């Protein structure tokens, strides 16, 4: 059971907006109605209870940071529809909302450009793609090798804009306890990065900023980098001279807190008749905004997957009048592996091979990107274990032949991968006089079970009972730690906690209390070079309704090789959660662009569908035992993201197996599926 479980089921667990504050005022963000233009005027209503208005007509004094989204109200230029261009602060939430509605904003709208197109003249190669990876990499003669390959697949897939939609909207309670001291309760994936960013923006000593975030209602990347919410709350509190609470609305989240960019990706696979790859080319096109460059690294996973003498991966982005895309669960891997693993399925058919066998034949000995040895790589073991559990052996490969009443049934498989990072962190452990231990680290629990897992790590290292260990996380005043993101939280925090506990053990002979600290920066800098990645395999069974085009996932299995699994219950939950989001990606999630107003029009949870209970059948997650001595003190790889990677491909491949129709654009909704079935003569 999770340590904070009882607090969560009784309602005692407090999230950012829920902390009490004396004389609190309420802010409400006001967003632009045009996709591109200039703000000409902002007129405030006369409204009892309205305290102040912030807008670009009176730019507040703040310093810029690298993310221009945080440089609030400094420019009258509107960069996308839904951009925060003003805010009101009022005595009550109701009045704030009313004031926001009544705020009169006049624009000079300009012609907008909001549609991603793989032939857009504005496409360019960014210097780096997200994660700091090279935009373009090549080896051998990929184009020629592809042209000369006996078996070829040349396919283009498209993925839509997708939205993180954590259940807790981004929220902040900001309070200036002195003119140079700021305390915020904030919903984020890492309190330290928010603290440092706020300190820079407001010209404060970081020691004078405290960010408190003990419970966070999900993030999935959208709370990984500071969003405008804490900045705006702090600005509003400064202007009002009172504590201020701010939450964006669900509708506002679709433009203000990041999303997964739509992509268009072309993959070319050239192989020998036996399926061995001669050439792999993966080109990805994505969008970014006018004010922030975010380049989704969609082709990067392809650099680590299969052995080939000729490999090309490249990215292009185009700046559009759209909200800034950002991290969403496994940015890069999720859209990229959807396409690579769908194309691999197409190659399996082209070569007349079982899709698992095709992958096994192309298993590399070393990392195709760097040539480094893998610290561990058990993709084949995952495929085999999954095949056993799923009953793959008796699968008839022929597509479109399994009819059950008015449905067609099929199964599909796809591989998964995600980097296994361990980042520098600090931790402090104290042995108390009563025999208990207190662990302190500025980690974040966004639903991952961080408290619970770090307790396990500390108790194991200290050879103590978990009950004797208290883990303090969720505040920037604790020892510095990286964010909960990139599947590196547990690995990084746990490593520092283990090292601090080891240091404490050495001191325990000297009586109580004792305290020890660890900083893993040097150790990690000097560790040997390996390609460190987690791997996995996803298996899906789908039923396609011939009357409606509705696709139901009947079974979904994930098998992972992710180092040592520290807590089976929370790990399983995280895997299943990733798979569930992957099912949403495959079947329903899509931002629908409105070309008239430049808006993603279905910006709420009634229209942007995420999986509900009835969409998700008995799904299962399993893992193989993997001992990897080259990772960290625990031998653990992160697991927060790999659960979503490749799920959409497994489902799409199952749909092809069911119907014989290859869909190359997500999501697979009835309006897309039904006409294609009819065009192929598939009717009930």
């Amino acid at each position, binding site marked *: 059971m999770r340590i904070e479980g009882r607090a969560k*089921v009784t*309602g005692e667990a407090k999230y950012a907006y*829920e902390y009490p504050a004396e004389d609190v005022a309420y802010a409400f963000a006001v967003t632009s109605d045009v996709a591109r233009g200039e703000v000409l005027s902002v007129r*405030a209503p006369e409204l009892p209870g309205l305290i102040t208005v912030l807008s670009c007509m009176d730019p507040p004094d703040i310093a810029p940071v690298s993310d221009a989204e945080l440089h609030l109200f400094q420019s009258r230029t509107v960069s996308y529809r839904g951009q925060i261009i003003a805010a009101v602060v009022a005595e009550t939430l*109701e009045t704030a909302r009313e004031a926001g509605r009544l705020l009169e904003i006049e624009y000079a709208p300009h012609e907008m450009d909001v549609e991603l197109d793989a032939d857009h003249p504005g496409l360019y190669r960014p210097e780096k793609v997200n994660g700091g990876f090279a935009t373009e990499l090549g080896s051998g003669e990929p184009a020629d090798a592809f042209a000369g390959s006996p078996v070829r697949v040349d396919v283009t897939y498209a993925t839509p804009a997708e939205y993180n939609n954590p259940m807790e909207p981004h929220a902040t309670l900001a309070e200036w306890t002195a003119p140079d001291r700021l305390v915020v309760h904030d919903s984020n994936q890492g309190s330290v990065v928010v603290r440092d960013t706020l300190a820079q923006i407001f010209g404060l000593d970081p020691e004078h900023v405290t960010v408190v975030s003990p419970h966070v209602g999900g993030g999935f990347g959208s709370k990984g980098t500071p969003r405008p919410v804490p900045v705006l709350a702090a600005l509003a509190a400064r202007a009002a001279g009172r504590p201020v609470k701010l939450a964006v609305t669900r509708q506002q989240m679709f433009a203000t807190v990041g999303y997964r960019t739509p992509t268009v990706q072309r993959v070319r696979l050239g192989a020998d008749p036996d399926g061995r790859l001669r050439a792999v080319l993966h080109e990805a096109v994505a969008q970014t905004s006018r004010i922030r460059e975010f380049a989704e690294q969609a082709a990067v996973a392809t650099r680590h997957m299969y052995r080939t003498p000729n490999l090309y991966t490249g990215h292009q982005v185009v700046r559009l009048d759209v909200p800034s895309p950002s991290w969403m669960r496994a940015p890069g891997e999720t859209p990229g592996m959807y396409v690579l693993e769908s194309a691999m399925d197409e190659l399996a058919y082209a070569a007349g091979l079982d899709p698992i066998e095709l992958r096994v034949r192309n298993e590399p000995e070393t990392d195709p990107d760097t040539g480094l040895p893998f610290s561990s790589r058990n993709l084949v073991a995952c495929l085999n274990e999954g095949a056993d559990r799923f009953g793959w052996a008796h699968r008839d490969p022929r597509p479109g032949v399994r009819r059950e009443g008015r449905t067609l049934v099929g199964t599909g498989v796809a591989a998964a991968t995600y980097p296994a990072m361990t980042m520098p962190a600090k931790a402090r452990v104290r042995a108390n006089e009563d025999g208990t231990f207190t662990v302190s680290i500025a980690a974040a629990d*966004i639903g991952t079970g961080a408290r619970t897992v770090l307790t396990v790590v500390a108790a194991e290292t200290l050879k103590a009972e978990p009950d004797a260990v208290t883990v303090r996380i969720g505040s920037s005043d604790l020892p510095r730690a990286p964010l909960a993101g990139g599947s590196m939280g547990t690995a990084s925090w746990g490593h520092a906690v283990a090292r601090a506990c080891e240091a404490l053990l050495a001191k325990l002979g000297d009586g109580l209390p004792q305290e020890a600290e660890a900083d893993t920066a040097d150790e990690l800098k000097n560790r040997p070079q390996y390609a460190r990645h987690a791997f996995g395999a996803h298996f899906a069974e789908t039923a396609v309704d011939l009357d409606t085009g509705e696709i139901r996932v009947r079974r979904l299995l994930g098998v992972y090789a992710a180092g040592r699994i520290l807590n089976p219950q929370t790990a399983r939950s995280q895997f299943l959660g990733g798979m569930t989001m992957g099912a949403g990606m495959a079947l329903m999630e899509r931002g629908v662009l409105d070309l008239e107003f430049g808006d993603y029009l279905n910006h709420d949870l009634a229209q942007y569908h995420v999986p509900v209970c009835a969409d998700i059948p008995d799904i299962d997650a399993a893992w193989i035992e993997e001992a990897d001595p080259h990772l960290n003190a625990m031998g653990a790889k992160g697991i927060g993201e790999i659960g979503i990677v490749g799920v959409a491909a497994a489902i799409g491949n199952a749909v092809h197996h069911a119907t014989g129709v290859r869909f190359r654009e997500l999501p697979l909704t009835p309006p897309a599926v039904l006409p294609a079935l009819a065009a192929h003569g598939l009717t009930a």
Partner: protein
Amino acid sequence: MVSGSAPPVRANIVLTVNGSLRRLTVDTRASLLDALRETLGLTGAKKGCDHGQCGACTVLLDGRRANACLALAVAQDGSDVVTVEGLADGERLSPVQEAFLAHDGYQCGYCTPGQLCSATGVLREAARGWPSAVTADVASEPPLDDAEIRERMSGNLCRCGAYQGIVAAVREAAR
């Protein structure tokens, strides 16, 4: 300055919240959810969408599940409200709460209060023989099998994807 609207209109109402009589003054524009969270300080019920689309604010209103964000507080005068804070009997958790813990039917916890109130409502509805959209024979007393649980719990979104644990928890609590 542009013309504004009139000052807020306030009203006195009485609610029974988690068994206690509460007298409060509410802005007539305030939702029951905001009255609970901002006026009474009962922050267990969550605001996930404020539009009745996610279920995070689910409470038991006069014994039945309701989205507190879709109910105007002023219109609930005299009502009985049970929030997640009222599900336990003192220190003793309800069977639904215990089952959510045992089956890890949550991750971030933000949808959890709504899931718990909803599940509590589901058990009552099933006990009364109320059918759902997946009940084949609406005149029968449907057993609360997994398909029924999934259907009846589908008004409560969980982006962490804890549905496996949620279904297992409701199944166990129904026993």
